[in-house]
């Protein structure tokens, strides 16, 4: 059962990924991306990471993709659909580079051995719930990275404001 679910999610994720990067219409790509995020959330659920699945949907599908759609509507692109979605030069070079990278990765994947196991066994995570397990780790051991993540978000807020602000041209 778990295997079947895994294959379903994995195949859909890969298929959608391929369709997203080749799709002519960016709006369609974004909507397919939405579907892909749901299947990613499904994979997280298979990994017993229900908090991550929820965050994935809330942040990626609920905020980031909406932002993408918003910008796509702002920069209304009608001619895009008639032209090739790819760059004229170096299209094949990109494909070759991606394939070479894939081969390198796959070699790594099959020569990979796991390191020593930690203390968060599946049973333990299920018992104290994933949210709590995450919270315990984030707010104790990883409090400094957490603060830094907050800082990065603050920088993004300020940066977004600075970019979006229209310059007063003498008025």
């Amino acid at each position, binding site marked *: 059962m*778990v*295997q079947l679910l*895994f294959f379903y999610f*994995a195949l859909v*994720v*890969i298929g959608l*990924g*391929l369709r997203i*990067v080749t799709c002519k219409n*960016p709006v369609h*790509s974004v909507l397919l*991306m939405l579907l*892909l995020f749901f299947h*990613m959330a499904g994979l*997280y659920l*298979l*990994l017993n*990471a229900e908090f*991550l699945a929820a*965050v*994935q949907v809330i*942040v*990626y599908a609920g*905020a*980031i993709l909406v*932002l*993408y759609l918003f*910008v796509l509507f*702002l*920069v209304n*692109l009608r001619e895009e659909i008639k032209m090739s979605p*790819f*760059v004229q030069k170096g299209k094949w070079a*990109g*494909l070759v580079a*991606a*394939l070479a*990278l894939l081969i390198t*990765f*796959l070699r*790594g*994947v099959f020569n*990979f051995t*796991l390191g020593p*196991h*930690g203390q968060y066994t*599946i049973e333990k995570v299920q018992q104290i719930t994933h949210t709590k397990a*995450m919270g315990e*780790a*984030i707010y104790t051991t*990883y409090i400094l*990275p957490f603060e830094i*993540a907050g800082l990065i*978000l603050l920088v*993004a*807020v300020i*940066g*977004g404001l600075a*970019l*979006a602000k229209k310059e007063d041209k003498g008025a």
Partner: protein
Amino acid sequence: MVHLSWYLTVSAMLFCIGVFGFLTRRNIIMMLLSIELMLNSVNLNLAAMSHYMEDIRGQVLVFFIIAVAAAEAAIGLGIVVTLFRNYRSVYTEDITILKG
């Protein structure tokens, strides 16, 4: 039983799809979307590792990556909007001002 290597394979493939999209798409918004794909594949990788190593660290890292991805999307799209305002285009080949 689902093996760790299966997850890693999926994640590797997704990452390469992202790389391909990033290198070949004309539209800057689509390039940003490809970056999201790559980040997602990395997230999957980390979450899977974390699950199989019975350690929560990887998943904490995923949490941070999602936060950073949100920041990246906000800034990236802000830049795209500014570009569009100045050049009326979001295609890479139109934005060649550094070439003179």
